[in-house]
């Protein structure tokens, strides 16, 4: 599948934003994050900026961005529509949480409840995003049970890395935040490795024989394609440039997105002041960069069953 930059940026940036929002909501309710206004303004401001930039980016790949509002109507059947509804709904508690915290300086009572509601809707939005991919039967590499846990864990891990950097910068390091961050990275790493193992060892039940129904005669191979130049189908579903570099890219994603941020997060818990700030900031930046590579692979390694009509032997 063609990796559209706008969708990669959207899922990584808004995933991190929702992860940060969820952890701020929960962390505030548990009293684990600094209660001062400027901290609320900066941390929730970054979460809002990431979420909003991601959502705008996601409309960039539309043929008619000005009609994007129509996507809110079909939430009964469409995960894309549900994602849109959840994403917009999340702004309501996010705004209440942010205004209550940063402007009125309150972090308990209704403000804390708004934070928790924001956490729930952030979770729902990332879940809906993952389900868009999970529900597509023609793409074996997406239609499996490892996709949703991966998306949720990676959103949480990236949000946690940002939160950890924030509390370090504020000079209010919390062992709990560092531990949550490390655990989230380990869970995300486990989910991703299970995912890669799955796509490496299994393939779609569909074959050129089932696609054409000619299996009774024997093995089916493409003799002549219907057209000489690339069409929309080949450009959108036939993307395979990255596959030959998949091993290297996976190593980059693993190290930048998981191994090094995990090590830096753990080290930061034992380091004093400035060094801890540097380690946690580098961890967050590397993690986001690694997730961008991971997300690129998520698209580039996905094979669509339509390619069985264009000479692919497996999907």
């Amino acid at each position, binding site marked *: *599948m063609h990796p559209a930059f706008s969708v990669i940026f959207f899922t990584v940036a808004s995933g991190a934003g929702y992860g940060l929002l969820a952890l701020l909501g929960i962390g505030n309710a548990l009293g684990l994050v600094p209660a001062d206004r400027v901290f609320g303004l900066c941390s929730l401001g970054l979460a809002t900026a990431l979420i909003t930039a991601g959502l705008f980016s996601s409309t960039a*790949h*539309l*043929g*008619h*961005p000005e*009609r*994007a509002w*129509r*996507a*809110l*109507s*079909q939430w*009964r*059947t*469409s*995960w*894309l*529509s549900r994602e*849109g509804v959840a994403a917009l709904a999340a702004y309501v508690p996010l705004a209440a949480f942010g205004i209550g915290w940063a402007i009125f300086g309150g972090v308990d009572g209704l403000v804390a409840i708004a934070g928790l509601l924001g956490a729930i809707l952030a979770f729902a939005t990332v879940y809906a995003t993952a389900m*868009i991919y999970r*529900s*597509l*039967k*023609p*793409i074996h590499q997406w239609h499996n049970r490892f996709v949703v846990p991966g998306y949720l864990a990676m959103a949480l891990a990236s949000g946690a890395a940002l939160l950890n950097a924030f509390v370090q910068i504020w000079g209010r390091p919390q062992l709990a935040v560092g531990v949550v961050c490390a655990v989230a990275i380990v869970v995300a790493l486990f989910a991703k490795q299970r995912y890669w193992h799955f796509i490496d060892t299994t393939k779609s*039940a*569909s074959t*050129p024989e*089932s*696609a*054409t*129904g*000619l*299996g*009774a*005669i*024997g*093995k*089916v*191979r*493409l*003799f*002549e*394609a*219907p*057209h000489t*130049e*690339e*069409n*929309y*189908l080949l450009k*959108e*579903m036939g993307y395979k440039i990255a596959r030959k570099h998949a091993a290297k890219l996976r190593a980059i994603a693993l190290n930048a997105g998981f191994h090094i941020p995990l090590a830096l997060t753990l080290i930061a818990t034992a380091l004093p002041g400035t060094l801890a700030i540097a380690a946690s900031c580098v961890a967050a930046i590397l993690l986001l960069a690694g997730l961008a590579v991971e997300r690129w692979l998520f698209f580039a390694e996905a094979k*669509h*069953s*339509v390619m069985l*009509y*264009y000479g692919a032997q497996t999907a």
Partner: protein
Amino acid sequence: MTGYAEPAAGAKKLGLVIDLDTCVGCHACAVNCKEWNSGGHSAPMTDLDPYGANADGVWFNRVHTFEAGESPESRTVHFPKSCLHCEKPACVEVCPTGASYKRAEDGIVLVNADTCIGCKLCSWACPYGAREFDADEGVMKKCTLCIDRIYNENLAAEERVPACVSTCPASARHFGDLGDPQSEVSKLVEARGGYALMPEMGYAPVNRYLPPRAAKKTVGCTGAEAELAKPAETAGLHPLLRWMDKVLSR
């Protein structure tokens, strides 16, 4: 609304039956589809750089050619493919705007170009590659089963079939109601063992494909073998010896 009622038993299910035994791979169906639909329901069928090195454009119908099996039993099969108007069209379910819909009255799957946002998710959800994005118009396009022909009272009755069906010189394409077991197309499917593509996906396509008939072993009614006779064992011998062999074999 993107929800759709699954067709009840006996409901009308308009679709195509494509005979892979008689299709000669001439692409006339694809060309006539392009011609008719360039002015039809989902017009235009945009072409980008049509005379340049990277010609690209929207087509609703494409003819692939496959080889199946190993020689001498192998077959070359021309394989036209267009929207199968599935009974469980995930392309309709995933549409966030309701622009993609399945008509309750005849089962035709269509796109409303006025409300499509061009998110392309429907094309990802289609296992068959039946939908093609029009980059110029920013909306998704697909086979309409020539909805502007089949109900068109300005056309002669025999022309009220999809453009691909009307133009096929080999009569390899048939149009009708596959929901009615007594229709001509249903009988054809029954008689010839018509099948659906990728049934394992669970989309329940309406269109059916008729498999190539078994290769003939004899020539017409003569009883002669279709294969060339093997050269005689004496082929390399001196003519005198061949004559003697013939005489002695009498």
